[in-house]
């Protein structure tokens, strides 16, 4: 069985630190036939808007797009759970021939009546872009009739990659902005952008901010509510994580309302602490900073001794990272360092030039940096670098497992809280529980000369 060699055309998207200056050819369309780990525009929109729990999410298209995104994220809600259902216009051949507008209108009316949502998002899929349904028109008509915002999401799958989908999602949310009442919002107030409340993470982050005296106006979009987004323009600051997904919205708010923006990450203790400090710094009130420092001290007190236990065991183990957005990769590189592990490969589906330059700056010599990779490449990197643990999503898991490599799910399907201080401990625990399992001694790559296999 031969191990794969990357295609010539892909070499521009793979870099080994130390070989030459980084010049990664990223943010381009996936190559045909390369089995990219990326999805499509629709996927980008769907993941961003998905956690808005009191909105109806109707996928206008044939059944596939809706059914593969049914209850797909571990994005929790403290109230309504409309987002966990899958709605589709389920277009059939006749609809494709004669157009799907009537069906869309009827579907919207009946679903809005049935569920009484606070708003409706209508996702356009590939086929709708081709048959030319006037989604905008139908949405306007239904909005008028039902008296709720009905928002088209221009997410035809083929019109770019996942990033284009993020942009389409932000555009749709942009229509909600500025329509709510902002009275009573504190001067020390923020919107949390780019956290999706996987396993309840945003509740933890909100609690941190509340403890230091900062009001959170809108969660965008974890545990999100339509009414909160409608008054998000009343917040004094946008705090953006996962910049790829929601930066467009922050930029839009900056242009429209002058809302300043800072970028943060809640993964790993350094980045989590820095997130709180940078928000406190922004408002310039020394009391906020004192409280932030006190919070960090309290949280770390219990945490550090436990982490050092993990560090003893995990020291020197090698990790590979392949995630959707690059922001998560930055934090993971630091988080692994904290528990003594060495990152030997890091990549993302949708990183930008700047992202990869930053990754190069924070990694060690010899680390492989890769954009828009695929199973054959990833598996060859795992082999080459003798990786002990792979961090990725569902599509990467079987690659690692097949080769007998430990795995940690850091994608949106996970059920484990990995953000915040507690999240760092959970992360270490999860890494530990996979790396230290006795099962690896049986896998072929560790089984030297055993004749049973």
């Amino acid at each position, binding site marked *: *069985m*031969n*191990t*794969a060699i990357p*295609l010539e*055309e892909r070499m521009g998207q793979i870099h080994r630190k130390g070989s030459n200056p980084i010049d990664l050819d990223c943010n381009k*369309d996936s190559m*045909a*036939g*390369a*089995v*990219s*780990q*990326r*999805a*499509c*525009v629709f*996927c980008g929109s769907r993941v961003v808007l998905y956690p808005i729990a009191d909105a109806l999410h109707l996928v206008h298209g*044939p*059944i*596939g*797009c*809706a*059914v*593969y*995104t*049914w209850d797909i994220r571990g994005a929790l809600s403290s109230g309504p759970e409309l987002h*966990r259902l*899958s*709605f*589709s*216009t*389920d*277009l*059939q*051949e006749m609809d*494709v021939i004669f157009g799907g507008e009537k*069906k869309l209108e*009827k579907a919207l009316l*009946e*679903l809005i009546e049935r569920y009484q949502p606070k708003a409706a998002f209508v996702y356009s899929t*590939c*086929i709708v*872009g*081709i*048959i030319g349904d006037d989604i905008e028109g139908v949405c306007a008509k239904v909005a008028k009739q039902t008296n709720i915002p009905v928002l088209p999401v221009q997410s035809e*799958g*083929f019109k770019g*990659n996942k990033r284009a989908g993020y942009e389409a999602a932000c555009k749709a949310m942009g229509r909600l902005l500025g329509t709510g009442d902002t009275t009573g919002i504190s001067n020390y107030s923020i919107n949390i952008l780019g956290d999706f409340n996987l396993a309840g993470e945003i509740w933890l982050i909100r609690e941190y901010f509340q403890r230091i005296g900062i009001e959170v106006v809108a969660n965008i979009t974890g545990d999100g509510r339509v009414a909160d987004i409608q008054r998000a323009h009343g917040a004094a600051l946008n705090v953006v994580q996962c910049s790829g997904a929601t930066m467009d919205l922050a930029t839009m708010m900056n242009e429209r309302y002058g809302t300043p923006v800072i970028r943060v990450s809640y993964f790993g203790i350094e980045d989590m602490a820095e997130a709180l400090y940078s928000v406190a710094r922004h408002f310039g009130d020394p009391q906020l900073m004192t409280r932030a420092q006190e919070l960090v001290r309290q949280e770390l007190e219990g945490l550090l001794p436990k982490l050092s236990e993990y560090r003893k065991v995990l020291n020197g183990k090698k990790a590979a990272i392949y995630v959707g957005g690059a922001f998560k990769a930055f934090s993971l590189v630091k988080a692994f360092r904290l528990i003594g592990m060495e990152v030997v490969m890091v990549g993302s589906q949708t990183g930008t030039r700047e992202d990869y330059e930053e990754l190069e700056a924070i990694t060690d010599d010899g680390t492989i940096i890769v954009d828009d990779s695929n*199973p*054959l490449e990833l598996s*060859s990197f795992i*082999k080459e670098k003798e990786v002990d643990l792979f961090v990725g999503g569902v*599509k990467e898991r*079987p*690659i690692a*497992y*097949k*080769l007998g490599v430990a795995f940690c799910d850091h994608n949106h399907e996970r059920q484990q809280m990995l953000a915040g201080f507690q999240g760092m401990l959970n992360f270490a625990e999860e890494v530990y529980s996979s790396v230290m399992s006795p099962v690896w001694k*049986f896998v072929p790559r560790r089984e030297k000369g055993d004749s049973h296999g």
Partner: protein
Amino acid sequence: MAKMSTYVSTTNACKLCKPLGASIAFKGIEGCVPFLHGSQGCATYMRRYIISHYNEPIDIASSSLGEKHAVYGGGPNLKLGLTNVTAKYCPRLVGLATTCLTETIGDDVKMLLNEYQKELGEEDSPRVVSVSTPSYSGTHMEGFHAAVQAVVEQLTEAVEPNETINLLSGFISTADIRYLKGVCNDFQLSPTILPDYSETLDGPALNDYPLIPEGGTPIESIVKMGGAQATIEFGSTLGEKSAGTFLEKTYSVPLHRCSLPIGISATDQLMDLLQSLNGKAIPEEYRSARGRLIDALVDGHKYVFGKRAVVFGEEDLVVGLAAFLTEIGIKPVLCASGGKSTRFKRAIENALEGSGFELPEVREDVDFYDIEDLAEDLEVDLLIGHSKAYTFSRRKGIPLIRVGFPIHDRVGGQRILHLGYHGAQMMFDTITNTIIERKQNLSEVGYSYM
């Protein structure tokens, strides 16, 4: 029930899209890489969905069409994709399925493939089987059967008669395929099981990532299917056009269509058929397995008698399960599917004929919203089908017996055995123990004997 007649939207579908079925079927051919002609998302979403059931690497290539291809045609990217897949995976076959995008923009795939072969020369171009699978017409099951049919139509040749039999086994589990191999072996028959993803979708731990996992129906065997002694084709809701009817019409291979061998009577029929094909007695092992099964049914019959079940999922699977349930005394009260073959109801009627049970409510083209709605007044004790009914099960507190595809919330979904006396035995034990456990849990006494 108002929804049934007037609603047009689908909520929590009980079906998947056509190219997904085709991709799984293509995974069951030796050296084959499934390839979707469409936008990148289709391949990625389906990979993710399939991975979550099989826990195996699932590489599905895509022509990754962008906006300009949608306008000017997907031909160039299709050709580029084929070249790249050939260079990287060295496939013996590319299983090419279309998507709604490429069907709607009107790409003529057959013509494009001809062009490609001319451009590259016959020797350098990969072997390709293509199938049309727009997801706006039919479900993953139509996609699965269409792919199997396309493989047979496009790969078989007129050959001398041989000693093999063709077994077109439908969408069954990897454990089921391995079981059928054993059955054929024990009957001393040489089967060509198509498709055979028993190894490719349930393989061992490896030292190297396989470009293409080992296993699958060998292409040489598929080529010779026209010379087989007979074809056995599973499915009670199949249409007139299928891989089996093609082999019958084109090469005069006698066709035996039968329902999936789920439960005693359907398995008996398969045993009789296999016996008639090899002319020997039913192997002792199956007689004793049948005997043990009946003994087990007797031991457990009281616990399951009169229970009421909703059975849902792919039409053929539901037909098989419904027949089995009536054999053990469980009443199927609702048989539901997202498919709409128009043959579902009739197939259920046939399968339950003579069972003494009144006919259940049979619904095709329904989603989980409908299923829950219909089940509301049926006093249901059990849900039997794939894991997408989990939320329904949780909300209503009705136990779910997980069978079929997908099983996304348990390990080992791909290893569930449904077929034969052995599969019936395992399902009976699972169902009975689920009922006993529920009774135990609800009991104030908590008996420690049955």
